[in-house]
């Protein structure tokens, strides 16, 4: 009995003090958000396993919890991820805190050239400080906020005639935000196929980043800027310019006039549900969902896509991510080998064919690219005018402030657009002062 107890104790001690990580040299864990492109990446990575013998594991976290989960993982020095496809806004903090491996030397050694990738994606997903040749990630998944619409409703002869009479133009995907609002108003409350439908599904989510990503899709085209002079943090007159106020008022107007009832806390998932169930004529959502939507059995053939409408300028809110090597990985060689493999033009082409948005010029500059998918031309157009949120190390605080100000104004109907943007400058100024940047 004593021997048994001693043995059990030794076993318990061995279990208790054994390293938690089961990382092996021939295993890599890749962390990303749980969404359609992640499934495509699982498929793609089978080729890497076949070539290298490295087993791939994946940790996919749903979007609303993705930032919380992964940033806590990085901050706590966790060893869960060898590779991380992290949001573009994380790059400043991750570079300054040493969470990501700087890839310049590796790129030079392996002949990976950043000039082979679309400039907007390199700038947004790879560089810190912004625009400098310091690379912390390889552009992995290009993305921007775009629009989906019900092609079958837009091609309905009766609706087309009525629209033409009312607005003196054809019922077509809107090119400006004013057209978007009018088109949404046209559909709002209308009965189609025996069902009451609504104008547009837009982002209003409060907890993570939803309403900021939605509102900036209106703000950028209207001329909103973060700073008057890049890098100076001089926000007065840029963040709260008359153009920015007009953009924000437009977003609220669309929320008020044309969203389904109860649309107060909606992001990607809720919008997809509203669109697929035939509730809305148009839906704001990321390009990343377009391949899945195009293949959808119910609405795929009835769905069209268009670029974020313009106002003063053509602009879209940037999504997408770069792939980075986590600095405290136990399998650095394996992680770098994956990056090297992923950067190859052939792999990038397959990535696009599986539903991932490759950023490699070999894919984007291919003469057949625009016709390769029903949303490919729109993707190219959108990526030509993308703008991103702050990528500062303090981005989480900056984002949280904007979430609050936008939701207070748009959804809770408190104050004016000018007051919301003035308040945002106050919040952001406080953050930058705390950072010692102002």
């Amino acid at each position, binding site marked *: 009995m004593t021997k048994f107890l001693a043995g059990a104790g030794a076993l318990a001690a061995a279990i208790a003090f054994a390293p938690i990580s089961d990382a092996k040299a021939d295993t890599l864990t890749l962390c990303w958000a749980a969404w359609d492109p992640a499934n495509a990446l699982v498929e793609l990575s089978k080729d890497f396993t076949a070539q290298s013998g490295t087993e791939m594991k994946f940790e996919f976290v749903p979007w609303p919890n993705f930032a919380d989960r992964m940033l806590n993982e990085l901050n706590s020095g966790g060893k869960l991820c060898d590779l991380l496809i992290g949001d573009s806004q994380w790059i400043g903090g991750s570079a300054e*805190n040493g969470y990501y491996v700087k890839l310049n030397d590796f790129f030079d050694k392996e002949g990976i050239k950043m000039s082979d990738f679309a400039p907007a994606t390199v700038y947004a997903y790879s560089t810190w400080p912004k625009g400098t040749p310091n690379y912390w990630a390889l552009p992995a998944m290009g993305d921007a906020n775009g629009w989906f619409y019900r092609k079958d409703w837009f091609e309905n002869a009766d609706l087309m005639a009525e629209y033409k009479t009312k607005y003196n133009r054809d019922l077509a995907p809107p090119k400006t935000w004013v057209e978007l609002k009018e088109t949404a108003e046209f559909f709002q409350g209308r009965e189609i196929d025996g069902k009451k439908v609504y104008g547009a599904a837009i982002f209003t989510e*409060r907890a993570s980043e939803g309403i900021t990503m939605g509102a900036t899709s209106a703000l950028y085209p209207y001329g909103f800027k973060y700073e008057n002079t890049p890098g100076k943090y001089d926000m007065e007159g840029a963040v709260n310019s008359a153009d920015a106020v007009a953009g924000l008022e437009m977003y609220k107007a669309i929320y008020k006039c044309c969203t389904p009832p*109860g649309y*107060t806390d909606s992001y990607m998932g809720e919008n997809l549900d509203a669109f697929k169930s035939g509730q809305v004529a148009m839906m704001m959502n990321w390009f990343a969902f377009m391949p899945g939507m195009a293949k959808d059995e119910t609405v795929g053939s009835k769905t069209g896509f268009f670029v974020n409408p313009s106002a003063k300028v053509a602009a879209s809110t940037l999504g997408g991510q770069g792939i980075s090597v986590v600095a405290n990985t136990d399998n650095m060689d394996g992680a770098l080998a994956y990056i090297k493999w992923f950067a190859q033009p052939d792999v990038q082409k397959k990535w696009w064919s599986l539903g991932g948005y490759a950023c490699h010029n070999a894919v984007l500059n291919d003469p057949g690219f625009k016709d390769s998918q029903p949303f490919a031309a729109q993707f190219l157009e959108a990526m030509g005018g993308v703008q991103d949120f702050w990528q500062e*190390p303090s981005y989480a*605080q900056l984002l949280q402030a904007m979430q609050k100000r936008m939701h207070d104004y748009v959804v809770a109907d408190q104050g004016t657009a000018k007051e919301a943007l003035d308040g945002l400058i106050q919040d952001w100024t406080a953050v930058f002062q705390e950072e010692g940047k102002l």
Partner: protein
Amino acid sequence: MQETPVFPASQNANNYAIANRAAAATPTGVSKAVRGLSDRSIAWLFVAPTMILLLAINIFPLIWTVYLSFTNYASNRPNRPVINVGLKWYRDILSSPEIWTAMQATAHFVFWTILFQTLIGFSLAYLVDRKFRGHAFWTTIILIPMMLSPAVVGNFWKFLYQPQIGLFNYVVSFFTGLPPSSFEMLGSVTLAPWAIIIVDTWMWTPYVMLICLAGLRSIPDYILEAAEVDRASRWRQFWSITLPMALPFIMLAVLFRGIENFKMFDMVMLLTGGGPGSTTELASITLKRAAFEAYRTGYSSAFAIILFVVVFGLANVYVKALNKVKQR
């Protein structure tokens, strides 16, 4: 003076036998090690693991939080030098309109949930205390909501409140004639604070009912029988006997619910995420956002300490009042 034996003789013999068996089973090494230890030392030996655990997971974090609250530490900036900021965060928090808005939202939530839960919970307990046919079954049914996870409750009430398909709007529509989609419980600044109160009341009234029921069942029958003999009316019996005697239990329920609702996070987070805007952003949600979304560790530590002091202070005052009521 002869000492009174603790156990009767037969039981003493039994105890000795158990003690002997325990002594025989103790490994020689252990028995040698403890030989000569005083009873007090052995008692400490037994209590020590729990004490160490408590110190490690309760007291140390508390002290560490107090320390962090005076620094600029941010958990997502491990390379930034940690400097002492003195009382800056405390001053910032106490003068922040957003924090006061969150505290007001919390106070509104705590006040109304406690009021409704106490009134309904006590009424239900009073009903269930009258033994009627099937009362055990109905008691079980009433208790179901408090057995559910707050996360589950938050999620399914989100569906119930959905203006197009939610049952809640249709029930209100049935009684008022309003179109179901004409109002949004979670999307309206006016209605959202009441929406979270309704859900918390639905979930936790059974808990208050249980405590009140214990209070009602603790009232000796002979007191009520004596009142009946004295021809006291039902109302007089309730007002002069039932309520005063159940009051300590009611106050205890209020204390428990007050502390719990002051810290309320999960259910409200799932239901509204603090929205619309910041209408239902309770103090704990503000704290979570500061600590784990904005990573302002020093700031959020100060806020946590302030909340702790408020809850601890109020609870102490309340417990003193409770003791006075019990002594009456």
